[in-house]
């Protein structure tokens, strides 16, 4: 089982053989090719992978912004793959807080108005909504910036407004798609610290990133390649991450470098894939657990 969780815990997210197929002309692109994943309450998960590995597609499906072509996605016991547009909107409103790489704030509205937005579509009353928006803006440290518009705020402040907006309806999961992709290293640290603080307060967080240093702050790192999960370790055991930490410590830091650990993992995944296509029955990939 996952680190820090007993067998009785009901997973927040359960994904089974999830597939997403895009049609590009006559070609069919398997963005997700049978993903199985369980995420438990109060986990802090980083989803990593090269571009085109399907991590953003997975994130969009987790956030109910997109629907899988095939497979099951059960969120808090509700099968989202069976829901219609209206019900999905309600799930996005109540269960999910989504943070975008490009913030996606309404440029005409103040920080306060932006945070109020999700509550416009919830059942919360007007006065309660205002109180809640103020409280959440305080939580992300923007009490003094409530009347500022996004163009009057720095990148880090904008992302904090977006985080406040994601948190305002007390979602069961917080999803962040490259939340620090548009930020400099100093503000990246601020945002990561904010995530860690939220995590320590009990928030379940899933972050998509391609930066090892961001992933290092998570508890668990899930790596995707070609629409499949190729590794799923706790951050302290992930060989690629450990290798990266070692190299950084030794001053050989090069993010683009393909390390021996990565090559090993990739070849393992490839052979397992061949094996599976041969005789292996479908189900949870065994190689993901290797090294445990």
């Amino acid at each position: 089982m996952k680190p820090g969780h007993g067998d009785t815990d009901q997973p927040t997210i359960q994904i089974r053989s999830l597939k997403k197929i895009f049609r590009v002309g006559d070609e069919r692109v398997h963005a997700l090719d049978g993903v199985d994943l369980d995420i438990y309450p109060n986990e802090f998960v980083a989803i990593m992978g090269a571009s085109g590995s399907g991590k953003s597609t997975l994130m969009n499906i987790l956030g109910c912004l997109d629907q899988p072509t095939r497979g099951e996605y059960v969120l808090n016991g509700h099968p989202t793959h069976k829901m219609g547009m209206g019900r999905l909107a309600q799930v996005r409103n109540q269960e999910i807080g989504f943070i975008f790489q490009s913030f996606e704030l309404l440029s005409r509205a103040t920080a306060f108005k932006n945070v109020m937005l999700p509550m416009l579509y919830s059942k919360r009353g007007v006065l309660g909504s205002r109180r809640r928006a103020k409280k959440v803006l305080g939580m992300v440290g923007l009490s003094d910036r409530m009347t500022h518009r996004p163009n009057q705020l720095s990148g880090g402040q904008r992302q904090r407004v977006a985080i406040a907006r994601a948190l305002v309806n007390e979602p069961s999961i917080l999803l962040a798609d490259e939340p620090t992709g548009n930020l400099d290293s100093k503000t990246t640290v601020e945002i990561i610290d904010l995530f860690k603080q939220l995590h320590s307060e009990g928030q379940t967080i899933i972050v998509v990133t391609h930066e090892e240093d961001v992933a290092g702050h998570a508890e668990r790192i899930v790596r995707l390649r070609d629409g499949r999960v190729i590794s799923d370790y706790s951050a302290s055991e992930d060989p690629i991450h450990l290798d990266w930490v070692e190299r950084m410590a030794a001053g050989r830091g090069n993010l683009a470098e393909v390390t021996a650990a990565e090559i090993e993992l990739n070849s393992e995944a490839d052979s397992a894939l061949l094996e599976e296509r041969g005789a292996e029955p479908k189900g949870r990939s065994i190689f993901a657990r290797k090294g445990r």
Partner: protein
Amino acid sequence: MLRMLLSPIGMVRRLIWQSVFLAIGQVWANKFRAVLTALGIIIGVGSVTIVAAGLDGMQGFVLNEFDKFGARKMWVWGDIPEDKEEVMSYSDVKMSVYEARLILQYAPSIESLSPLTYGGWDVGYGKTMAKGARITGIWDTWHDIEDRQVVLGRPFSKADNEEKHQVCLINEQAIEDLKLSIDPTGDYLLVGGRRFLIVGVIETKEASGMFGGGQSRVEVYMPFNTLKMMNPYSGTHFVLETISADASEAAQDEIRFILRNHRNLDPEEADTFDMFVLQSEIENFNKVARVIGMIVGAIVFVSLIVGGVGIMNIMLVSVSERTREIGLRKAVGAKPFVVLLQFLVEAVVLCLFGGAIGLLIGFGIVAGVGLIPNLPINEFEIPQWALWLSVGFSALVGIVFGMFPAIKASMLNPIDALRHE
């Protein structure tokens, strides 16, 4: 309070208000574009108000003219049928007092009747003479039918007629023209060489130009029998009042029946009398006014449709301009219905905005035209129905032409909308 806001109805109401504020903000942010977009609606609504005001004013004017006459009034006179012109004279078809009594007795739709007869004598007082005075012989019932105030003295009584008193009523114009004293009651007027006691003065009422009146002139009224005694050969006709404006059809049938019966006319013979009923003229006029109104309405309808297409176009632009915003709203939980509502409300607000400007322009023009004197139009102002019609129509155009863009926005997939550039 909290419970009310939590209830679904409260939420829908909140949503609508939110959408309205949002839409007003949107229109305000693009003022110039909004005006250009709504131009079709502005022109449509402006023209409908102006035309409605004109039509309504003209109708009011004409009906007012009719009203001066009295909508319940009708006239009956003897008339020689065309095929009998060589065998009959006017004395053969003249109305008689006996017929008047028959009508009063047997026509339930008739409230009141007075025979009328005219004399052509000169009227004099002292050395002053009035030429071309209208001298009319009437019953006392005339006062019930004609809406003419007795400003001095008394009206006629039944006895005046029955005992053929040599009394007369004059109009105010006569005081002026004949240089009578301010209160001439008790003075004597010379009519056809006889002295008539002035018993009362009635107001001068200008017959409208529409019915061949125009200038007011000296009028002298005397009891019917008195005038008949002076000139038994004068013509006679009736003025009548029906019990209600709607009874005019029935009244005509009753009178025709009574008179034909009394005059022993065979079924194949034509009427030897004729009638004029104001009510049927009013109905004819209203019919014409309705047709004009329908033609104008059709033109305005077309202009509003053209305006609506403009609205639809700009709403489609607005939807694709704000695709990312729609995507975000959906991502944070806006249901398709809510997005639909937002864009629909925006289209309606845009149309109502155009409608309001159109109304303002209409009001301005109407107020300006209203300053022109002597218009054949009564109270040139925008009638309330036109106001509601144009407001309702603008809203309807907004809903109809905003529906397609709104549906388009509501059906967007959130992630596709968010990725839209």
